[in-house]
């Protein structure tokens, strides 16, 4: 409404331009780690041009140059190897526009467009990294952007520090209100599935297993998930975090199904209801309740002790006793899980499952098949056969290593069992399931994680990528599916302790990682501290969603009703607004009027009531004369009063009197006013 009629000079000043450039650099810097770095020089080029134009050295570029530069930029993006429809591409385009726009910033409005894009880019940077550090940097960027908003409002340039200080004050004062919004505002489930995926793509365990995959994971100390147990911690060798079941073997690779399926198909095939699940279980033993925070993997797989009988979170149960998230995990996700590890699963095996669990490729690995037949003949029972196979791993010269030899394309099981005998968990699990199936025992491979490191301080388990593991499940009459870990026979340390202990001699733990805290024992306490801070960050901030919101509000305010929440939020609002008003000095009364003026105003009001009102332009003296004429019976008092008032106001001698004297004068003035009042 004020734009019309007030043609303000809305050009961005030189100082404002420098601020804008700084803000752009601050916003773009973290994104340069993930996106084409050459966009940064584009920004510098645009800014340099604009600044030279402002200084009068250069002309503002014409439309042809602008078009040329824009086409050049887009061409460079298209050959930079980003997928066309991907988050990276979108973010890069946004950044490119952000950088180019600098060239066009003349009016404040243009600068605002750049700043708004800047806010969006802070958001985009959070898609790439969600660490505490990133969040803090985001706040810093927010302050710089706010500072730029201030700087472009200023007509003259002010000191950078002062502007930065007021921007910080503004942004930090927002914190309480932002927290109220954050805690109380409803959370929604995604409106549409996101085709854009971040460049790092999927992490963690993949949905297929070729010997060597897990060995690759073992080189990473990235966090996979954290677990907090309610009650006692299970023993280390019971911590099998089951994630994927691989049933199909093509001679080289193990996969869940014979062909690759879309997530929706997987869900259709595997999802079962809680009651169906209960029918397939014979509950036994004790229950374990725990809270898991899954890290971002861009995959839907969840890892838990099997079988899970209860979950709180956005996930479903499956026929193979797993839990799977309803969607890919793009943000740390928290879930409360209850497992009964001793429960019997599938005591009656459905035929379809049995068929899958006996599948073998029609040919190949003939030596192993022959061996299986021979050993089965020699054994009196299935159990004995199983023990024979497991014993083979220990008795013969099998060796657990993170540096297994390459086995080639064909007969990989034969090569492993009879020739190299060196392998990693995937080799042992794969060969074991092969031997079982070859003997007609239903078996399958399970991948996931094994073990975990207890953080003494935070009392939580951290499961890292190097805890990735593969083991097996076989089905036996009356027992259902039972877990067998062939690796435990070869390298008991892997299961009893951890990977590091298992490959201690080899020294291949976290090989290739130059600096990793996990490698250095003496850093442990610092690492623990950091881990528990990060745990809290994930637990309370990153995984804050509908579920956690509900439970938090319930814990704080009891049963949740709309009315109650509205009252609480309203109360918070009032408190915050009061705090702001007091902090900003808005509630302060304006400086108190001197007493004599107050009394004089009362005097004027009194006379006005009796029809003698004072024009604002009348001096006290003139008014006194006028009033005396109008109210002759009071002339003396009015004159005396006005005289005293004038003296108090204008006579320096009276003014410089001591305070005591002054109060006497005020008293006299009051008495005079009283007499006038009485007479009236």
């Amino acid at each position, binding site marked *: 409404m004020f734009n019309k009629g007030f043609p303000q000079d809305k050009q961005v000043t030189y100082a404002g331009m420098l601020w804008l450039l700084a803000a752009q650099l601050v916003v773009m810097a973290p994104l340069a780690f993930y996106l084409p770095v050459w966009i940064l020089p584009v920004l510098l080029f645009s800014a340099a041009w604009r600044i030279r134009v402002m200084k009068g050295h250069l002309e503002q570029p014409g439309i042809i140059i602008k078009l040329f530069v824009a086409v050049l930029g887009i061409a460079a993006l298209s050959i930079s190897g980003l997928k066309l429809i991907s988050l990276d591409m979108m973010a890069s385009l946004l950044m490119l526009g952000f950088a180019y726009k600098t060239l066009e910033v003349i009016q404040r409005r243009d600068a605002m467009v750049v700043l*708004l894009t800047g806010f969006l880019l802070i*958001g985009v940077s959070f*898609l790439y990294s969600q660490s505490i550090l990133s969040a803090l940097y*985001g706040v810093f960027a927010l302050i710089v952007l706010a500072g730029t*908003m201030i700087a472009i409002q200023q007509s003259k340039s002010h000191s950078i520090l002062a502007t930065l200080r007021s921007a910080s004050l*503004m942004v930090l004062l927002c*914190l309480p*209100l*932002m927290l109220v919004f954050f805690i109380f505002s409803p959370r929604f489930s995604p409106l549409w599935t996101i085709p854009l995926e971040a460049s790092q793509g999927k992490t963690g365990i993949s949905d297929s297993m070729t010997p060597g995959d897990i060995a690759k994971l073992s080189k990473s100390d990235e966090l996979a998930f954290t677990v907090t147990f309610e009650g006692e911690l299970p023993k280390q060798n019971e911590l099998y975090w089951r994630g994927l079941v691989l049933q199909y073997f093509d001679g080289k690779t193990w996969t869940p199904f014979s062909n690759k399926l879309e997530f929706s198909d997987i869900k259709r095939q595997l999802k079962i209801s809680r009651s169906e699940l209960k029918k397939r279980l014979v509950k036994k033993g004790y229950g374990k309740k725990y809270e898991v925070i899954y890290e971002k993997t861009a995959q839907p797989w969840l890892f838990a002790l099997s079988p899970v009988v209860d979950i709180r979170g956005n996930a479903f149960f499956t026929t193979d006793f797993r839990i799977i998230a309803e969607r890919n995990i*793009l943000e740390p996700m928290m879930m409360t899980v209850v497992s009964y590890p001793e429960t019997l699963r599938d005591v009656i095996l459905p035929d379809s499952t049995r068929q899958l669990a006996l599948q073998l490729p029609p040919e190949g690995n003939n030596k192993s098949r022959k061996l299986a037949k021979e050993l089965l003949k020699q054994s009196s029972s299935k159990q004995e056969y199983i023990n024979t196979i497991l014993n083979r791993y220990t008795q013969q010269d099998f060796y657990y290593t993170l540096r297994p030899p390459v086995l080639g394309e064909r007969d990989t099981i034969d090569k492993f069992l009879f020739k190299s005998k060196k392998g990693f968990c995937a080799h042992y699990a794969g060969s074991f399931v092969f031997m079982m199936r070859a003997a007609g025992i239903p078996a399958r491979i399970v991948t996931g994680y094994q073990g975990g490191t207890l953080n003494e301080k935070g009392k939580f388990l951290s499961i890292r990528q190097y805890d990735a593991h593969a083991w097996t499940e076989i089905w036996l009459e009356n027992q259902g599916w039972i877990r067998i870990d062939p690796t435990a026979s070869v390298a008991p340390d892997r299961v009893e302790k951890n990977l590091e202990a298992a490959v201690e001699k080899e020294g291949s733990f976290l090989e290739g990682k130059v600096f990793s805290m996990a490698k250095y024992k003496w850093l442990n306490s610092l690492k623990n501290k950091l881990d528990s801070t990060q745990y809290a960050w994930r637990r309370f901030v990153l995984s804050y969603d509908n579920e956690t919101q509900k439970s938090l509000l319930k814990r704080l305010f009891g049963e949740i009703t709309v009315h109650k929440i509205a009252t609480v939020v309203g109360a918070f609002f009032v408190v915050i607004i009061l705090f702001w008003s007091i902090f900003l000095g808005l509630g302060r009364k304006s400086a108190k009027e001197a007493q004599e003026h107050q009394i004089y105003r009362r005097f004027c009001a009194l006379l006005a009531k009796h029809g003698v009102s004072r024009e604002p332009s009348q001096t006290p003296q003139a008014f006194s004369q006028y009033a005396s004429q109008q109210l002759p019976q009071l002339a003396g008092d009015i004159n005396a009063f006005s005289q005293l008032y004038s003296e108090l106001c204008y006579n320096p001698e009276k003014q410089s009197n001591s305070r005591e004297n002054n109060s006497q004068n005020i008293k006299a003035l009051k008495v005079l006013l009283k007499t006038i009042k009485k007479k009236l």
Partner: protein
Amino acid sequence: MFSKQYRQTLREKWLAERFPNTKEITLGLKRIFVMPTMTSAALLLALFVLLLMAINFQSSLIYGLTFWLLALIIISVFFTYRNLSEVTVRAIQASSCFAGEKAVFELEISCPEGQKKSAISVGWKFQDFTTIDLLNQNSVSIKLSHETLKRGIFKPKRVSIFTTFPIGLVVAWSYASLEMQSIVYPTPLLQESSEDGLSLAEDAEQGKEIIRGSTDFSGVRQYQVGDSPKHIHWPSYAKTGEAYTKTFVDYANQDLWLEWNSLALKGIETKLSHLCAKVLQYHQDHQIYGLKIPGKTIQPSSGEAHKTICLTALALYGIS
């Protein structure tokens, strides 16, 4: 529901109550209005995009960012309000001008000691405004001009005072209805064809001469120190070699009278414009002149003060 005009009157009435005419006004809670700007609307749009991002990527941090910016819009209401609150606007003086010209008003903008105000704009819509800072000084005096259309007393409308500082998301504004008036003189417009309203008696002899006037040549006398060289009578200097000074006389009882009644012009305003032009002309020529208009007679005199009196009389003709 209500006609536009009715709403306008209601608004005017409401504003008049809230902003009484005063010499000075201090802006406070009751008088400051706050509204989001278009920038806020654009930011809200960006927030919507951010919210979609937060929902679809289930990102707590983006939720946080969205809420933080929302809070920023809200807190900027307080900051912008603070930038305007306790600002005092005081009328200092108003200059007179001729109708059609711009009257200049001088105002003082001040704030309590120890406070800092930035980028406060003061002015009239479509007229003139200026933007000031109160950083190291507590008060600033500014001059604003306002165009005038007709002669008389010009009282400007309420002055708008507004600011979008610090971050431009919100505009806080208020008005000051200041007791200020400018006297607007008629537009000077000489009517050549007319009788010029001048009643100067022809026979100067009958009048008493005022020696050393400046109008009519009366003779020469010996040069005295201090005489203007312009008045030296050069022909006699050439003849005698002595300097003589020309003397002039004005006629005291034959002063220049600008008389309304002797003007053969039609229309009040035309007459006033003509008289105004004449006043200016005589003043320029250092004449002594008087003014007679219905209801007012101003005795002949000269000088700046006299001119102002005459022009004011013309400006206020017919206006109580």
